[in-house]
């Protein structure tokens, strides 16, 4: 009897501890959904190159150590991006001309999933019907429809996002892309047939597991997957600031049309 009581109290104690632990690990919104609110950021080199790569020289020799490309272990499952033969050629060409051809250089909207792992924070503002993801880079933003998604009227840079919950995971189906964005600075690209399925799963309170399955029959022979952790920005005063980069690219884009100053 005594042993049974003792056993029960130990059991109950561990259940309570587990519950408390769980509470801490997986915050919930008032609707009982996993709480993804916060400012998040990737901490890897996927924006330089989704695949494994050693550090290499950058393309602007005057700025060398500041713009050299850091190495990384890659975010692609199996490290292989299954390009169709013609598409592989295009990728290699993109790599050669990346200094001018990468849409990031011109401050264009970065597309999905690239916006997630650019070296800038992004913020999730979660409500029950819609979820906003606002990215610092170029002020890009997406509305994820959790209920009654409208039809997408046209292709777009950031795509059309429809979400649902699978247990602790936010699953977002993204379609209606144009063919203008890249996946990284290494020239990995897609067509307007791109279809991305993202999965955001809490890993404790301060990290998310991020997965994106990428499908594009015009460019790839099969779907492929990337994954990486995303980290919460823990600064008490964390806040997205503006990175309205249009201003920074005007000289590059329109400098030739500037009034010539007579010397």
């Amino acid at each position: 009897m005594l042993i049974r009581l003792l056993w029960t109290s130990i059991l109950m104690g561990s259940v309570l501890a587990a519950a408390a632990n769980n509470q801490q690990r997986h915050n919930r919104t008032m609707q009982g959904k996993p709480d993804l609110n916060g400012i998040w950021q990737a901490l890897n080199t996927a924006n330089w190159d989704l695949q494994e790569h050693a550090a290499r020289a950058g393309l602007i020799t005057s700025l060398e150590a500041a713009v050299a490309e850091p190495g990384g272990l890659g975010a692609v499952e199996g490290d292989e991006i299954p390009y169709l033969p013609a598409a592989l050629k295009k990728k290699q060409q993109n790599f050669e001309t990346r200094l001018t051809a990468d849409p990031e250089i011109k401050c264009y909207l970065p597309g999905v999933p690239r916006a997630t792992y650019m070296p800038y924070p992004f913020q999730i503002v979660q409500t029950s019907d819609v979820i906003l993801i606002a990215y610092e880079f170029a002020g890009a933003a997406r509305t994820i429809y959790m209920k009654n998604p409208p039809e997408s009227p046209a292709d777009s840079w950031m795509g059309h996002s429809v979400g649902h919950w699978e247990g602790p995971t936010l699953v977002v189906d993204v379609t209606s892309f144009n063919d203008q964005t890249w996946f990284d600075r290494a020239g990995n690209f897609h067509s307007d047939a791109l279809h991305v399925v993202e999965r955001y799963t809490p890993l404790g309170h301060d990290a998310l597991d991020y997965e994106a399955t990428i499908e594009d029959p015009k460019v790839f022979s099969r779907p492929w997957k990337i994954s990486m952790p995303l980290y919460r920005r823990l600064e008490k005063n964390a806040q997205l600031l503006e990175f309205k980069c249009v201003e920074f690219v005007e000289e590059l884009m329109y400098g030739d049309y500037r009034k010539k100053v007579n010397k």
Partner: protein
Amino acid sequence: MGHRFLVMFTVAIVATLAAVSAAAQSSPQARKTRASKPWTPPLTPDGQPDLQGVWLSNRATPLERPKALEGRQYLTDAEVAELKKRADRIFKGGNSDFAAGDNAFLAALANVEQYKNPNISTGGSLDMVEREFDNRTSLIIDPPDGKIPPLTPEARRKQAAAEVRQRLLAGPEDVNNALRCITFGVPRLGGNFGSGPYSYYRIFQNQHYFVLFSEIIHEARIVPLDGRPHLPRSIRLWNGDSRGRWEGRSLVVDTSNFSPKSDFMGSAENLHLVERFTRVAPDTIEYQITLDDATTWTKPWTAMIRLKETHDAIYEFACHEGNYQIMVGMLAGARAQEAEETKKQRETK
């Protein structure tokens, strides 16, 4: 005799009551409020008034009270009906240009045959967002004359200099912020951007944040509600730094830290903006905007916009991505004009 007196007396009382009642009714809003039961807004799960949804600023009411309506805060219902009828005739036939901002109201008030945009037309009137007419004669509620207070001498000089720069366009930075696709500015009030197609918003709201998301250039104003202080004064943002708090049924957003490159009617780094969002009916938010910048205006002023709930969706407005030819066109045009003028100067010498 006594009977007649009684009748006259009654008439006098009724007339007095009618006069009092007419005075009380001079505000159509007051009339509506009294007629219907007090309405309480729906609440979010954490108990705050729910402002969420897609909202549109589509009233025809002009920012400033037109000269023809000086001294009149409100139109009569008959006058509103007449303006509405005229607007339908002018804009629903398809003979008129697209009228943005105040132009729909002003065209109806002037009862023009057809509306022609004096500047470059952005299309025909059939593409316009349906504009709603109501009794108000200006969005500005303070000062009571419905006019923007006079500019300070410093602001007038700055405005004149900006006009010269925008005519000569020495470089991209001389183009206005909206045409550069940097920002359509905060707040969206007046000009072409305050109402009609440029003024679809989605409000996201939870316990910690309020977000006013503008469709135009996908600008999300993310407003923390946790009482944190503003950014340090050294950090200046095109759209300012916003902090929010609840005051009863109203969400109050205080914005400062604007950049010297911000441009709300010439006001920039010294602008202090206070906005109040109050849901006053299921489909209406009263959005009050108070602008204070002693270096720009001789006194603060306040406008009130009614946002209407819409079941339209918000779509991606990629601005800069499609702007290359437009920017090049404007700048190349300025260079061509320059060359022309230089040639003329040489010929006259």
